């Protein structure tokens, strides 16, 4: 149980550390740094986590693995909804995202929410990259603590 709190606190600190540059660092640069941290983490993490779960041949199987196993391992819950247009775009709905659930419920702090999603976007992108899927991951929040992650697979 203790490691859940650890992860929350380290993530909070990472976000505030990256943003502490003040005027010298722009919002985009800082978010980009967090995303890159998530990417490197996800790349190595998935090598370790897929030890027991075997290999996946299908892109949809890989997405389901992300929604179920990966989310349970990292955030202790599953993704609530997965939608796809079967043409390379997947949307993951999380109705109670762990990092946002401690902040507010509703529209307060909406402008700061992207900072707390950047690491997760990178994490998903890194995991998919090591599993063979090149993609772009973006996040969208309309009302805390629910959020949507959109995965766009680069093909061709």
């Amino acid at each position, binding site marked *: 149980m203790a490691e859940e709190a650890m992860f929350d606190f380290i993530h909070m600190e990472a976000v505030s550390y990256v943003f502490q540059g003040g005027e010298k660092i722009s919002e985009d640069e800082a978010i980009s740094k967090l995303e890159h941290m998530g990417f490197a983490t996800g790349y190595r993490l*998935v*090598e370790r986590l*897929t*030890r027991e*779960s075997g*290999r*996946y041949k299908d892109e949809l199987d890989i997405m389901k693995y992300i929604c179920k196993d990966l989310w349970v391992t990292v955030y202790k819950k599953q993704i609530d909804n997965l939608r796809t247009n079967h043409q390379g775009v997947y949307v993951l709905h999380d109705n109670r995202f762990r990092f946002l659930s401690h902040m507010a419920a509703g529209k307060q702090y909406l402008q700061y929410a992207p900072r707390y999603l950047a690491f997760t976007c990178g994490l998903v992108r890194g995991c998919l990259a*090591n*599993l*063979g899927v090149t993609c772009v991951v973006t996040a969208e929040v309309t009302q805390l603590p629910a959020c949507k992650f959109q995965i766009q697979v680069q093909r061709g």
Partner: protein
Amino acid sequence: MAVAGNYYFAIVGHHDNPMFEMEFTPANKEPKKEDHRHLNQFIAHAALDLVDESMWTTGNMYLRLVDKFNEWYVSAFVTAGRIRLICLHDVKNDDGIKNFFMEMYETYIKHSMNPFYTPNSPIKSPAFEKKAHFYGRKYLTG
């Protein structure tokens, strides 16, 4: 009953680059001619296409025998992160090779968690080599 055989083991990364190579020969045999080394790499590289092909047909990590060249058999093992472990051998030793692959997979995972190791780069750790020697002697050359 341990059948003496020669083995060549290689770990291949995402860009078909060799990350680690090692040869195992039985202890009692005298060293063979040196010009067989480059042939091993050639055979392993040629087998990569067949590994990629059979990778999509099965969900297992251990792909068993994928290719044969003259007297060399090629067995392969692919991880979820698409790291390919290739083993060239001249005697059939399915169980031993499967155990060896599983142990090397575990060793590789532990090594990949080292923050100073960049994924897909050559593995130069002496501890890794020692482990490979140990498992090779335990499961392959007996």
